[in-house]
């Protein structure tokens, strides 16, 4: 993927007053959030209680880094991503990117809530079920987010073709999703998720259906595409984590059980899960 032309950025616009929490509230909210060692202007902070799913997680992703989120099936990984992207409003919690609050649901039922709808968050998500648009070709699927970010039609289609080529499926650009194999669909979904390149990118098991050889090839491509963005990546494959992530967060029973650099967590695992993950 050529980085030369840079990613088209969604014009951020001004945040409506209702979304911008007053400074006082924000300060108290910060107390709830876990202290992060190296807080920066655009860190992604999440604190989410979803009691229906036994999830109560908090985590911070330093701006511009890739966090690997791991844990057994049903532990709450997808739930955390949904809260970040605004697809789920937690019973209580807060999501912010730097000073910008995306979700705020105070415990006090009467207190003011903040909720920025998904399409205005500057967050792009690859869902676990990627839901490629069935009536669009692979190219149009990838161009979709680019068009939403304001790119012209021709430019969006050109960029989409490039991304599909990066994913090794240039020749399938004009196919509809149902005319592609499972792995080809997964590749299209990855291209679609990273295409618009917003501040925050969430990827839920993007490589699950991609063959091992291709994953090895892609890791470099994807790493370049994700460089500079704040990313949360869910994966069950240790290889993905080693190759792509800066930090790892291990979930256990709905909580974040352990966080740290890849080396720290994978190198000296204190949880049985991580040991098993590494085989």
């Amino acid at each position, binding site marked *: 993927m050529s980085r030369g032309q840079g990613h088209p950025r*969604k014009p951020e616009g001004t945040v409506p007053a209702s979304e911008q929490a007053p400074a006082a509230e924000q300060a108290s909210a910060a107390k709830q959030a876990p202290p992060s060692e190296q807080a920066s202007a655009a860190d992604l902070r999440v604190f989410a209680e979803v009691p229906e799913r036994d999830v109560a997680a908090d985590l911070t992703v330093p701006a511009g880094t890739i966090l690997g989120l791991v844990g057994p099936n049903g532990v709450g990984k997808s739930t955390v991503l949904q809260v970040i*992207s*605004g*697809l789920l409003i937690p019973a209580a919690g807060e999501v912010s990117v730097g000073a910008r609050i995306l979700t705020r649901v105070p415990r006090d039922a009467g207190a003011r809530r903040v909720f920025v*709808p*998904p*399409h*205005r968050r*500057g*967050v*792009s*998500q690859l*869902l676990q*079920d*990627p*839901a490629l*648009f*069935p*009536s*669009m070709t692979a190219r149009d699927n990838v161009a*979709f*987010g680019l*068009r*939403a*970010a304001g790119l012209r039609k021709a430019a969006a289609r050109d960029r989409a073709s490039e991304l599909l080529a990066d994913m090794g499926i240039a020749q399938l650009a004009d196919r*509809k999703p*149902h*005319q592609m194999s499972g792995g080809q669909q997964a590749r299209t979904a990855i291209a*679609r*998720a990273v295409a*618009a390149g*917003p501040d925050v990118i969430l990827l839920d098991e993007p490589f699950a259906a991609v063959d091992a050889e291709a994953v090895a090839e892609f890791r470099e491509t994807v790493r370049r595409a994700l460089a500079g963005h704040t990313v949360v990546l869910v994966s069950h494959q240790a290889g993905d984590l080693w190759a792509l992530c800066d930090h790892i967060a291990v979930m256990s029973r709905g909580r974040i059980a352990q966080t740290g650099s890849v080396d720290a967590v994978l190198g000296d695992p204190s949880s049985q899960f991580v040991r098993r993950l590494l085989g």
Partner: protein
Amino acid sequence: MRSSQTYQPGVPAWLIPIAVVAAAVVLLPLVGMLARLPMGQFLSLITSVPSLEALRLSLITASSAAVLCVLLGVPLAVTLVRIEFPGRQLARAFVLLPLVLPPVVGGLALLYTFGRRGVVGAPLSAVGIDIAFSTIAVVLAQIFVSMPFVVITIESALLSMGTKYEIAAASLGASPWRSLLMVTVPSLMPAILSGGILAFARSLGEFGATITFAGSLQGVTRTLPLEIYLQREADPDAAIALSVLLVLIAVVIVASVYRLPARYRGLRP
């Protein structure tokens, strides 16, 4: 060499006799009507000036009504399904009512509303706009009786479609209107087509509300069903001939527009 084929899920054999009975209920009466058709005079009966004028008027008004029903009905259905507001359940039921109302009563209701003395008609009349007894009144009557078809068809499609693709669109930064135009509407196309065809067909056959609200003026408001009704008083044979004409026209138009959408079949394989 042949090409490969994907397996099409089968249908239990005992379904077919039931389907045949169902089709018979609908088709037998049409056959019964054809049996009474005065073949010899058929052509001369249907090519009289009043018949042709009524036909032209019917086609114009019914297609206008169908298009307007879709343009208005799709937003209404989307709103009723996707926006929560108090009384939504009731609003959905009310939208069905033109279906329940016998058409002549519906025509009276329209007259009470858009007539010169009506709630809406009086102010309009004051500024010189008279709707009743014009071709516009015909279209309005047709929209009134046909709207529920579009709304219900779209509603049920929206419900069975779910929100999966719209959620994916939002998670990619698409605003609601982009999501609607690019994701929702394309998926709704089969339902929009069905709803539009239903509205067109119902409008083509509309009689009671039209004669009551719009009157029966040749070339202005006398559509084919009104012409049939008039002919029935004078010449029942002509009425049958015109009914057969109406049926033929409808079959030709419906069958050509309302194909099994092969290109949509692939949507969710």
